[in-house]
């Protein structure tokens, strides 16, 4: 099993990819996932995150099989 990580909008462009899969070793929280994909950086305040399509926080727990998403503030409507 893996954790699927997804990026949207300007963040997707900055990351240069729309998604990737991580082996969930040492990944207890959303912040850990971000560090794993961003070379140890802390999660920026202006990046929103979701776990399994519900809004989450940096310290929301993640587990094997979860989908974790990162994206900029939303601008619909």
């Amino acid at each position, binding site marked *: 099993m893996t954790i699927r990580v997804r990026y949207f909008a*300007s963040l997707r462009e900055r990351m240069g990819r729309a998604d990737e899969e991580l082996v969930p070793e040492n990944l207890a929280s959303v912040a850990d996932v971000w560090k794993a994909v961003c070379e140890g950086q802390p999660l920026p305040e202006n990046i929103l995150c*979701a776990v399994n399509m519900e809004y989450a926080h940096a310290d929301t727990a993640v587990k094997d099989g979860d989908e974790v*998403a990162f*994206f*900029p*503030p*939303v*601008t*619909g*409507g």
Partner: protein
Amino acid sequence: MRIELRATAFDPLAELAGYQAETAVLAGSFGATALFIGTMRDSNEGQSVRKMTLEHYPGMTERQLQNIVEESRKHWPFDDVLVIHRVGELLPADPIVLIAVWSSHRGIAFDACRHILEALKHRAPFWKKEALEHGERWVETNTSGYVSGS
């Protein structure tokens, strides 16, 4: 109740007429319909906009819209609701969003319609990218929907 994403242009008034025809059983009972239609503007922040792309998060967007509508209905027990939101490529004057709320109480219809719009603007995963005369840009944040001092 219907919540829908659309990948191609839609006519909000035709959608409303169609939805009301399907739900005609409600016609004599609701009394008040509050509606909001958001359309693409041909300029933003002083620059003219040729085209817009609306990105979304398939699955999460639908789920968040559902959450917003259910939460609104708890506060404002309206009779029925229709929400349609565009995704994909839009041209100036194209409708972006339609929100219609039916109730027997006009205050409930207005408040629920407005709450759904504000919640959608702040929480539904949509992102706008504008094509300008030269180059493109992501819209960074939604403006406030409330008028100061009113």
